[in-house]
């Protein structure tokens, strides 16, 4: 509590209520316009979807424990991996960081009272719920077996599963993502506090802004694509089925035009979180702020030009393949810029290995592997051999789980004391961060080798020679599951028994740490005036870090 005095520009008085205690009725939650409450509701919902997707993942790994098709039939297996993909991508990964952490923190980080369009924000949550319920209904009815990519003409003509309901669920859900992106863009443009210039924005905000651009430009395209697919499936006439004059490759183009940029929706916010973690837990101004900020924008722009690398062997023109291969190499550059800048930030930093930082460093290692193997797959010669093998599976899990999920967990731990006002157990936090890292590598690194040895994806059986590596992978998945379940337990525990975190438990200069924990409904009692640069750890920023640290050491010793 004494930190508030140490932070000169913090709020002088305590508000009566924080956002959690400002109303306890169900109505006060369901009809709230408070971005923080909406974020909490998102957090709960996406956690449920994550668990559901995780159950499907467990089923996949258990089936692949043995070479034979024994636990699941092939048809069931098709549904299981499809639903794992659909739940994880559309209902967990895409909303994870933007809708939970972004929603909660973006207005606070720029010193605003709320997002610019709070009712639109609530609407996006409801749209997400409707899309989610429709999808869950379809899964309970019997599910879908097309793969999450819905390739035509299988999905329009041949698949005998609930393609329509799931497609509609994804179509509806897309608008939730569009509205969130729209809201973030408007908010960053118009709601910044006095003195919060564009180049004082935390890099998390820059990353959210870039993500929002992708959401607005990409998601409508997949919406119309899925809509066309649904119409074609219903009425039997359309533009995707070659039997009636249509073009299945056009579907792939339109699908990947969104779904490749969607990969950046799934990793850019993670990069934003990691920029925060690396700089703050090194207690050092981030190296190359402008480069990291603009590399986010560059990824958003170039991300729209590389969709064809999903289609190297699907019959697109060879010349298009060459261009897409080249552009794929180009899009790696801004990601590399970020990696180098993070590394440079760590250099001679005063690094503390708190739980969030363990996730942040884990991200750097895993994303490095995920990103570099992406270059293997982007090179047009090698990809012919690796397409549709477990090498691809391992690659995108390294980016999606090793990137976004790790960053999401890191961010959740980092801002948990701000969101709830409680501190979790650092001991268990560190254990689980390490379990996740070890379990993840044990699960997915063997899959690189499996893919290189030629094991195709999306099959329930495989040659017996490949069993050893598959056993490694399934064993790793068990460790990973434990690592994911532990935070659920100790974070929930901390809600009731955790020690009060104080306003600024990590001793950091960011604007979000200058209000109370949990923040009041209006975020700041008086509108803050920003007079410092981002990640400024000097004395002049008003943070008596050394003094605060001394006090903390004394209290730990006691």
């Amino acid at each position: 509590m004494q930190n508030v005095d140490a932070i000169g520009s913090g709020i002088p008085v305590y508000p009566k209520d924080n956002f959690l205690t400002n109303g306890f009725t169900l109505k006060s939650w369901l009809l709230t316009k408070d971005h923080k409450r909406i974020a909490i509701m998102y957090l709960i919902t996406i956690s449920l979807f994550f668990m559901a997707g995780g159950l499907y993942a467990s089923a996949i790994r258990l089936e692949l424990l043995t070479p034979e098709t024994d636990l699941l039939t092939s048809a069931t297996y098709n549904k299981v991996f499809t639903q794992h993909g659909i739940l994880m991508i559309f209902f967990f990964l895409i909303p994870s960081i933007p809708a939970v952490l972004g929603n909660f923190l973006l207005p606070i980080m720029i010193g605003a009272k709320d997002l610019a369009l709070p009712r639109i924000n609530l609407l996006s949550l409801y749209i997400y719920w409707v899309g989610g319920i429709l999808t869950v209904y379809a899964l309970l009815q019997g599910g879908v077996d097309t793969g999450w990519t819905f390739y035509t003409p299988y999905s329009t003509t041949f698949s005998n599963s609930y393609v329509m309901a799931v497609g509609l669920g994804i179509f509806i859900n897309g608008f939730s993502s569009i509205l969130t992106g729209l809201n973030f863009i408007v908010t960053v443009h118009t709601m910044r506090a006095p003195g919060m210039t564009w180049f004082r924005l935390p890099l998390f905000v820059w990353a959210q802004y870039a993500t929002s651009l992708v959401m607005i430009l990409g998601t409508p395209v997949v919406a119309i694509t899925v809509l066309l697919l649904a119409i074609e499936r219903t009425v039997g006439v359309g533009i995707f089925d070659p039997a009636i004059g249509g073009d299945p490759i056009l579907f792939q183009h339109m699908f990947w035009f969104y779904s490749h940029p969607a990969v950046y929706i799934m990793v850019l916010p993670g990069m934003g979180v990691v920029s925060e973690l690396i700089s703050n837990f090194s207690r050092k101004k981030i190296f190359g702020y402008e480069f990291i900020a603009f590399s986010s924008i560059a990824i958003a722009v170039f991300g729209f030009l590389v969709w064809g690398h999903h289609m190297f062997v699907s019959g697109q023109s060879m010349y298009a393949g060459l261009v897409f291969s080249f552009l794929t190499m180009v899009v790696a550059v801004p990601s590399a810029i970020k990696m180098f800048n993070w590394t440079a930030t760590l250099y001679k930093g005063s690094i503390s290995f708190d739980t969030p930082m363990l996730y942040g460093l884990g991200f750097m290692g895993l994303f490095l592997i995920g990103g570099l193997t992406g270059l293997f797959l982007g090179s047009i010669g090698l990809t012919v051999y690796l397409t549709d093998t477990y090498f691809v599976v391992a690659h995108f899990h390294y980016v999606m789980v090793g990137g976004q999920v790790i960053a999401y967990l890191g961010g959740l731990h980092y801002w948990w004391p701000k969101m709830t006002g409680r501190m979790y157990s650092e001991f268990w936090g560190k254990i689980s961060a390490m379990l996740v890292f070890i379990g993840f590598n044990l699960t997915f690194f063997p899959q690189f080798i499996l893919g290189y040895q030629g094991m195709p994806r999306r099959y329930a059986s495989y040659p017996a020679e490949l069993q050893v590596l598959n056993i490694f992978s399934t064993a790793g998945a068990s460790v990973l599951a434990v690592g994911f379940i532990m935070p659920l337990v100790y974070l929930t525990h901390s809600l009731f028994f955790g020690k009060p975190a104080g306003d600024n438990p990590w001793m950091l200069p960011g604007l979000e740490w200058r209000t109370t924990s949990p923040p009041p409904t209006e975020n700041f009692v008086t509108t803050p005036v920003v007079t410092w640069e981002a990640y400024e750890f000097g004395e002049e920023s008003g943070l008596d870090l050394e003094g605060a640290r001394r006090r903390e050491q004394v209290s730990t010793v006691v």
Partner: protein
Amino acid sequence: MATHSDTHHEEFHYHAPGLQHQFEDMKQQEESVSIGMWMFLVQEIMFFGGLFTAYLVFRSRFPLAFAEASNHLNAFWGGLNTLVLIVSSLTMALAVYFAQKGNRNMQVIMIILTMIFGATFLGVKVIEYTDKYNTGLVPVTGWNKKTKKADAEHAAEPAKKDQAFAIPLIETRAEASEAAGDHSAPYINPKGEFQWNSGRHVFDYAIEKEKSGKPYLTAAERVGYFSNGEFDPNKYRDKIRIFYYIYFVMTGLHALHMIIGLGLMAWLLWAAYRGTFSADYFAPVEMSGLYWHFVDIVWIFLFPLLYLLGRHFLGAH
């Protein structure tokens, strides 16, 4: 900005009409709403953009089939609708203007006029869709008018078309029966199927051109219209059906946007009638106007792409 909050300041905030709690002042609110609306329109452009892409891909591959099919849309109705929408854009812009001036009565009148034009557009669309339904040009089996032989024999005179814009082509079964007279070959469509009757005027025109030594067909057409080197009317018909599929999806989604626009107008009308808008607070009118203009512009692109395409082939005959 509000660095020190005295009570007068707060009260001023409280009384500003339509100011939401999250904003400091009206200027910030207007900017936010405006950027938000433009971002929404950006996503709308991408949404329709997917359709336009699909159109362009098939149009560039099969220009002959698309021209052939396009000649069966009624350019008179399409042109009339274009005019109606352009005028509605004018009345919409005037509604915004009068809202800014705080002129309630003119505002209400302009919104009503806009709604009338919007409804006219949809009415014309109903006429056009009905015509396609009656003549069997809806691409989906079962979604056309089902006529049995007995119905056809007792049917009244077929509707007269406006000769100035009518297309002198016999390409659908309905046209074929009309040309032959009721008694010899009545138009029947018991299952409500797509009624393209292997008409190929534009294709023949292209073949004539090819004979003069100039390549006229696209590479896709050389594959897409032929089976074993022979012209395949069924494959040609598939491409024509794709045109109608795209026509119905695009104009259908556009009409849906018009209906949403009319809903917005109804809400605006109610608010304007109650005198909600003034020179200080007119953002909802302005934003609805942006939406309305956007929907108009989509039609400005749809009309030439769908209706006017390849009408010069008629002049050549």
